[in-house]
């Protein structure tokens, strides 16, 4: 699977309270959640995000609450991929479980600048910064997790088993 989009860049420890503030957790509607995505960190996100855009962030992305509303809001905003130096563990499994592509790649997350055009090949683990010409390699997911992704998320594995 190849993904291509422009970078929206954030720093370290982007927590789930800023990804989707708790005051909006009285709904599980994906569009409503997307309408408030990143609101307490970056008020411009909702107006500038374009389908396919890629978030590049620092360490411990998605720390804090277990709210699945956070990856749901990001996915429903049109973000195709999140690249970070590292992910908080519940966010990591939630993203995999709902089918939001994420890649842990400290080098790419560091090098990518706001607005850069990136292309990521999830099968080969190669990330290309088209704007700068740099190329990065990541470890592909283990087979167990690839199976979840191929099944369209964790619940898909029940139908397939």
């Amino acid at each position, binding site marked *: 699977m190849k993904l291509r989009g422009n970078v929206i860049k954030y720093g370290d420890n982007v927590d789930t309270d800023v990804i989707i503030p708790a005051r909006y957790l009285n709904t599980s509607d994906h569009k409503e959640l997307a309408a408030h995505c990143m609101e307490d960190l970056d008020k411009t996100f909702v107006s500038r995000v374009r389908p396919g855009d890629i978030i590049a962030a620092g360490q411990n992305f998605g*720390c804090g609450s277990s709210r699945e509303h956070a*990856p749901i809001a990001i996915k429903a905003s049109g973000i195709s991929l999140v690249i970070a130096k590292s992910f908080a563990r519940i966010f990591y499994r939630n993203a995999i479980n709902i089918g939001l592509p994420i890649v842990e790649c400290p080098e790419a997350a560091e090098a990518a600048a706001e607005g850069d055009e990136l292309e990521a090949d999830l099968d080969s683990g190669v990330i290309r910064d088209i704007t700068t010409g740099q190329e990065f390699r990541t470890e592909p997911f283990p087979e167990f997790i690839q199976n979840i992704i191929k099944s369209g998320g964790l619940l898909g594995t029940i139908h397939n088993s």
Partner: protein
Amino acid sequence: MAMTMTQKILAAHSGLDEVRAGQLVLADIDLVLGNDITSPVAINEFAKLGRDSVFDRDKVTMIMDHFAPNKDIKAAEQCRQCRDFCADMGITHFYDVGEMGIEHALVPEKGLVSAGQLVIGADSHTCTYGALGAFSTGVGSTDMAFGMATGKAWFKVPSAIKFNLRGELRKYVSGKDVILSIIGMTGVDGALYKSMEFSGAGLSALTVSDRLCIANMAIEAGAKNGIFAVDEAALGYIRTHGGAEPVVYEAAPDADYDEVYDIDLTDIEPTVAFPHLPDNARTFADIGNIRIDQAVIGSCTNGRLEDLEAAAEILRGRKIAKGVRTIVIPATQQVYLDAMERGLLKIFIEAGAVVSTPTCGPCLGGHMGILAAGERAVATTNRNFVGRMGHPTSEVYLASPATAAASAVTGRITSPWEVMDA
């Protein structure tokens, strides 16, 4: 293979003799937990499977605590969705207003968790039950749905950091000060994907309530779980609360740890985590004059009876400073009742605090004490992220019940040692 406590529990629940750090396993679960925020998402996912029953109606629990009693119409709809689902599925352990409490205080109190068990909860602070020697960890709503359907969850077996405790806590110092100082050392991602394993001679000096508080905040160091060696105190708690027969797992003497911290509890001082991360920990030598607008005493971290007793000891016969809105939230109905019978509620009210029904409420900026722009709160809660308790420019300072009570009295962030002249 020399396994840690967590690895032994994961192996036993995966039908394996041994597991290694990094291995992916599909494990049997003893309890699946959800609340009024995370369960609706799980119920929607579960519905797509077209199943008419959960894997075991005694092993699923839903607790209405975050925005309950319903804070608005949408919250009311979410609670109703949970209520209807639990009725349809015949879920035994559904806790609504009148029976509910903050989930991580309620689950141990109701005896729903025991040593050696494996618990997943669609709430990050599910790691609390490690205090009783269970492997328990926070997951998302899809994991909850998968768990309700199959009785299983996938895990990457974690490596571990060992915290070797010795000594005894000084007066007015509690488990909250211990965990805030530990997170100050590790950082908010210092234990990312790992277990935090607590053991050593100092364990006997920590009450079960202290341990529940410490394990509760393991997630704030990024950990997958926090877990305590099981001793008589833990077993006594499990028996008293009617938990299942405990299965005690001990870490192998030569178990492999990524890091070992030796902590003398006697060295721990009252500790406060400054905005906007829980690892921004300071002791009072580095805390200046910080005026507060609100004090919150409660939450899954610090809403147990022992926490209210610590706060009441400081507030007894004192008045809360004018302009400090002090909100005390017993974590469960039982804690509320016990606090009433022991006269703690009278102490709080006479000091000028309000006492609320159990709810997560202000901890996550839900209701019952939201902060305006620029306001500051000292809170016994677990997170101080941007906007956590209200307006994005408000600030939350995390502290123990004793420190929160002392601060309410003076109107600025204050050590209990100062107020009690200790």
